[in-house]
């Protein structure tokens, strides 16, 4: 039932995106593309943070790793983007497993700080490994994806690629959420000790969730690289990691719809409020604050106002808010 609903959601995304691709001007299409790519990264972060409860402030590093592997293998080795992308995703997931083994022994603030360190290190390596990454000059002329010799280089056709990718990612994430692994991941978030007592290998699960999350990030990174066609270390600084986290929390952690809503809103908001100049950050801070106070479950929590809780089964309603 829930799975059917997720397919419904996927169809909605395609339909809404399809309509928008016809009516929106180029500039807004570009923003929309960036927000769809961010959505994919944030859905990945949701697996680590929303399901397993791992506070990661280094998500942008995984986005960057995917993007760099994609950029280097297409520009240097002349690999087709279609081949480079799965390689980048797999390599990033493998890296996440390797780094997760020592990192995920940490919990809470310590893990947050360690992942932040990972992100900072990533930027330093990317800025200084000149032969490989081009340093702060970045890598230019990353090829676009192409289908039957039609390059997906303009905003409108890229939107379709991004939307199809997002749909795919949503379906996979939903299947994961409702699989035995998804349940086990959530049990680790809820109570690690109890999860261990019930026979769950929590270490293995945490690493698996972390790797999954990194794979999503890498996927987003590949799309980003082929969309913008130029990447530099700044695109993956820790500020972006914090932004991803803000998107997830504003949208509604633990939910896929929330991840998408948050990503779209926080991509468009800075543009709408551009006239504010530097005052934007103050307003942004206030907005996030208001959301956290009045909608602790994120924007998806707004649903309760739309439906109105029935008195009969308020507990069921309340339950649905925590984790629809």
């Amino acid at each position: 039932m829930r799975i059917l609903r997720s397919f419904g959601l996927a169809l909605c995304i395609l339909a809404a995106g399809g309509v928008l691709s016809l009516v929106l001007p180029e500039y807004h299409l570009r923003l929309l593309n960036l927000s769809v790519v961010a959505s994919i990264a944030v859905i990945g972060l949701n697996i680590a943070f929303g399901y397993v409860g791992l506070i990661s402030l280094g998500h942008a590093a995984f986005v960057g790793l995917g993007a760099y592997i994609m950029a280097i293998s297409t520009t240097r080795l002349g690999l087709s983007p279609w081949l480079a992308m799965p390689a980048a995703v797999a390599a990033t997931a493998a890296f996440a497993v390797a780094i997760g083994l020592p990192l995920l022994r940490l919990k809470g603030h310590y893990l947050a700080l360690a992942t932040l360190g990972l992100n900072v290190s990533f930027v330093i390596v990317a800025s200084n490994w000149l032969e490989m990454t081009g340093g702060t000059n970045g890598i230019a002329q990353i090829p676009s994806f192409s289908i039957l010799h039609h390059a997906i280089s303009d905003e409108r056709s890229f939107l379709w690629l991004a939307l199809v990718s997002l749909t795919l990612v949503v379906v996979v994430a939903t299947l994961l959420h409702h699989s035995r692994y998804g349940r086990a991941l959530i049990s680790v978030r809820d109570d690690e000790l109890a999860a261990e007592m019930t026979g769950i290998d929590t270490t293995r699960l945490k690493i698996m969730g972390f790797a999954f999350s990194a794979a999503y990030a890498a996927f987003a990174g590949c799309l980003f690289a082929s969309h913008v066609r130029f990447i530099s270390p700044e695109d993956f600084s820790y500020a972006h990691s914090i932004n991803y986290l803000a998107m997830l929390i504003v949208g509604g952690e633990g939910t896929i719809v929330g991840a998408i809503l948050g990503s779209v809103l926080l991509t468009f908001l800075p543009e709408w409020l551009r006239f504010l100049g530097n005052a934007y950050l103050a307003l942004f801070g206030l907005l996030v604050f208001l959301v956290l106070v009045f909608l602790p479950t994120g924007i998806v929590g707004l649903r309760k106002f739309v439906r109105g809780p029935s008195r009969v089964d308020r507990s069921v309603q309340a339950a649905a808010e925590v984790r629809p």
Partner: protein
Amino acid sequence: MLACNNLTIAHGDVVAVSGVNLQVGAGETVALIGANGAGKTTLLHTISGLNKARSGDIQLDGTSILRLSSDRRVALGIAQAPEGRRIFPGLTVEENLVVATANWKKIRQSCADDLDRVFQLFPRLKERRTQLGWSLSGGEQQMLAIGRALMARPRLLLLDEPSLGLAPRLAEEVYERVKVIASAGLTILVVEQNTVLALAVADRAYVLEAGRVVLDGSAAELRNDSRVREAYLGR
């Protein structure tokens, strides 16, 4: 079935359990009673593999399990319903139960029979099967915690203070269920502060004081022991 031989457990420098010998035979219900801070929960956690032992040994059917991880021990048949229930608030009742089958369930295998058995034992859980864990009352959560432990198909069930924080009538209800589980032949080791309840279901009991076993014997003996009556039964 379970044997703790000269077991000493320490949290850092603080010795919580020292030189404990404890046996649980197959099919027995054994109670471990004692005051707050006597080391009961520490001992149970160590049997589950959540604490390390400093010295001594824990054996299951004659082989040491001291080096095994928690999930391996669950796979060997030791499941625990922890103190304070610790159910998963973000999962539904049914998911809470199904998640505990991780150690034995293969991908296409069904656990419907196990679910039915738990629902038969705790019909209230069946009514609430689609509700999220946090929305249950304390008594229902305790039943869920026990049910979850049973889903792991244990041979030895560890119960940590199943009466904790429950109204007396609910606590009795929980213990009635424990009796049913025991009479079905499952081996149970129950840790309890509520000595009356524990001694009512147990065959044998150990009294733990400041990390040492100070008394052990059949439940009937302990019920009539003057020290136990004075210290724990309050009459």
